[in-house]
């Protein structure tokens, strides 16, 4: 088994044991990037010299026994909406094309303290607005399973980099499915934590009440280790929560005996690809065969999640993106007459189509005369959706379903009809509205050879049961695959 075939935790062990040096691990990743990046375009920025410098510094600390953790020396990719001091951070937008932050996002800083090597900044949909990574101002990322298809989004570069072995794990962010959906499309594991678990300090805001940072990894073990490393309360994020239950690796237990799993009937209606449906139901059957109690139920309100989400997320985005004004950082238009004309021209030239579309909808639903009818109404529907999940979690430990209605679509097939693209978020979006943790784990491959993802959702603060069930399912699938040779 080559270095690149190791998981992050396996690599970390080899580094601690002195079997692989940090430099060897980084060089292996760089060699891979040089070979495949031309095809996949997972990164907006990557820094060979910087990575090798980090590698030597980290190796010294490992040799001095100052860094003994599982992630020390492991090369990672960071989604380009998290600030990295001294390293270009574009949010995949022209408007931040030259932005070099003066500080590092808190989640990234926790990884640095654990001794990871940052290889570069992963491609994404512009300002995380999109489901395919095609709205990036720096070109689309391709799916490593088949480069004619999208990797999903918005954390498409992060997911593709893990799948293409251009890093050992990556950080992404999830506002309406942006970790879980690309994880599903690229056949990796992605987890969106309970809102407030990971600090948003240094995450360039899209929908602040929905955004969470989380890991994209090769397996559930890596996912638990990374989450444990970044899940820390932070006074710089006023919505961050102090939790005393973040020992997520303790949940890596192969046992689903007695775990109650609910499958929403409403997730298996019209629009769901039959192959995705079959793979997800088969996964549920396997969990049942291993002792889980699996039932179908009616979650309700599923169809209302998307309109509520786009109202709330776009309202927040219109406010959050006001800061891009061509004064303090980023792009400024070259010719203008006065301040307001400068603002308008800068923003019109600096933002892409999808971002402008969402800013306009957001501005509209917050405007006087429409605020109650749209924004306030959506917040009330959000309360109803949260209540529907609360009711479900009275009965179940886990809600299980698909991540997305289909596997990865072809490049260019999604952007022409925004509403249709939004409908692809139907299974992931309500999780953000209700602040819940959700995980995507691979559960099969369709007849086109593209991976299918299984989504499991738990009640707030119950990542442990999520990780235990996902870990168990991963082991079941490994055993099945071994038996099938």
């Amino acid at each position, binding site marked *: 088994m080559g270095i690149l075939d190791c998981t992050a935790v396996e690599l970390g062990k080899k580094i601690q044991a002195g079997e692989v040096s940090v430099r060897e691990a980084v060089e292996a990743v760089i060699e891979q990037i040089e070979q495949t990046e031309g095809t996949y375009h997972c990164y907006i920025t990557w820094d060979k010299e910087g990575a090798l410098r980090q590698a030597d510094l980290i190796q010294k600390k490992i040799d001095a026994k100052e860094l003994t953790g599982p992630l020390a020396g492991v090369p990672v990719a960071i989604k380009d909406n998290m600030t990295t001091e001294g390293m270009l951070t574009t949010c995949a937008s022209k408007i931040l094309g030259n932005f*070099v932050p*003066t500080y590092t996002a808190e989640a990234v800083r926790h990884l640095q303290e654990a001794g990871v090597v940052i290889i570069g900044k992963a491609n994404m949909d512009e300002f995380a607005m999109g489901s395919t990574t095609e709205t990036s101002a720096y070109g689309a990322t391709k799916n490593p399973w088949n480069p004619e298809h999208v990797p999903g989004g918005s954390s498409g570069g992060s997911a593709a980099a893990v799948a293409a072995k251009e890093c050992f794990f990556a950080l992404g962010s999830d506002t309406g499915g942006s970790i879980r959906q690309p994880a599903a499309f690229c056949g990796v594991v992605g987890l969106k934590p309970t*809102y*407030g678990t990971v600090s948003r300090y240094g995450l360039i805001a899209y929908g602040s*009440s929905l955004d969470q940072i989380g890991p994209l990894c090769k397996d559930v073990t890596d996912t638990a280790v990374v989450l444990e490393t970044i899940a820390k309360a932070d*006074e710089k994020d*006023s*919505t961050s*929560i102090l939790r005393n239950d973040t020992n997520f690796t303790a949940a890596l237990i192969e046992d689903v005996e007695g775990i109650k799993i609910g499958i929403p009937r409403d997730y298996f209606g019209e629009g769901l690809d039959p192959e995705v449906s079959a793979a997800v139901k088969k996964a549920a059957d396997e969990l049942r065969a291993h002792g889980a109690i699996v039932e179908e139920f009616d979650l309700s309100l599923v169809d*209302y999640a*998307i*309109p509520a989400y*786009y*109202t709330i997320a776009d309202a927040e985005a*219109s406010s959050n993106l*006001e800061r891009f*004004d*061509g*004064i*303090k*950082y980023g*792009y400024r238009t070259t010719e*203008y007459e*006065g*301040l*307001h*004309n*400068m*603002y*308008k*021209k800068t*923003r*019109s030239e600096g*933002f892409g189509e999808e971002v*402008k*579309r969402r*800013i*306009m*909808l957001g*501005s*509209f*639903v917050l*405007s006087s005369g429409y605020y109650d009818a*749209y924004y*306030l*109404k*959506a*917040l*009330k*529907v*959000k*309360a*109803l959706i*949260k209540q529907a999940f609360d009711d479900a979690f009275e009965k179940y430990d886990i809600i299980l379903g698909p991540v997305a209605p289909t596997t990865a679509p072809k490049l260019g097939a999604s952007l022409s009809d*925004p*509403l249709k693209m939004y409908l692809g978020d139907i299974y992931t979006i309500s999780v953000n*509205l*209700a*602040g819940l943790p959700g995980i995507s784990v691979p559960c099969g491959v369709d007849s086109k050879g593209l991976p299918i993802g299984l989504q499991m959702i738990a009640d*707030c603060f119950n990542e442990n049961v999520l990780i235990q069930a996902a870990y168990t399912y991963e082991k079941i699938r490994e055993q099945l695959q071994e038996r099938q040779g």
Partner: protein
Amino acid sequence: MANVITDETIEYVGILSKLELDAAQKEQAKKDLEEMLDYIDQLGELDTDGVEPMSHVHPLCNRFREDVVTNGDDREHILANAPEEKDGTFVVPRTFD
């Protein structure tokens, strides 16, 4: 109910959004906005009388701290990102004549 976005409304949205749209972009924006609002209107099917709007999923309250400066002077690096700077400050276009 089909929503109709007038020229005046799209003009107003452009002002609120601080975006400059040409004639073709305005027509496209009207169409996109109408389509999304028609879609969002289905929220009206739900009876939300008496439901408290939920802006935040967790019952959090404000956390106060002493107003103490903890970050250092980073003026040089911060200004390095500015499109235009002069004498250690941001330069903005003239706003008054």
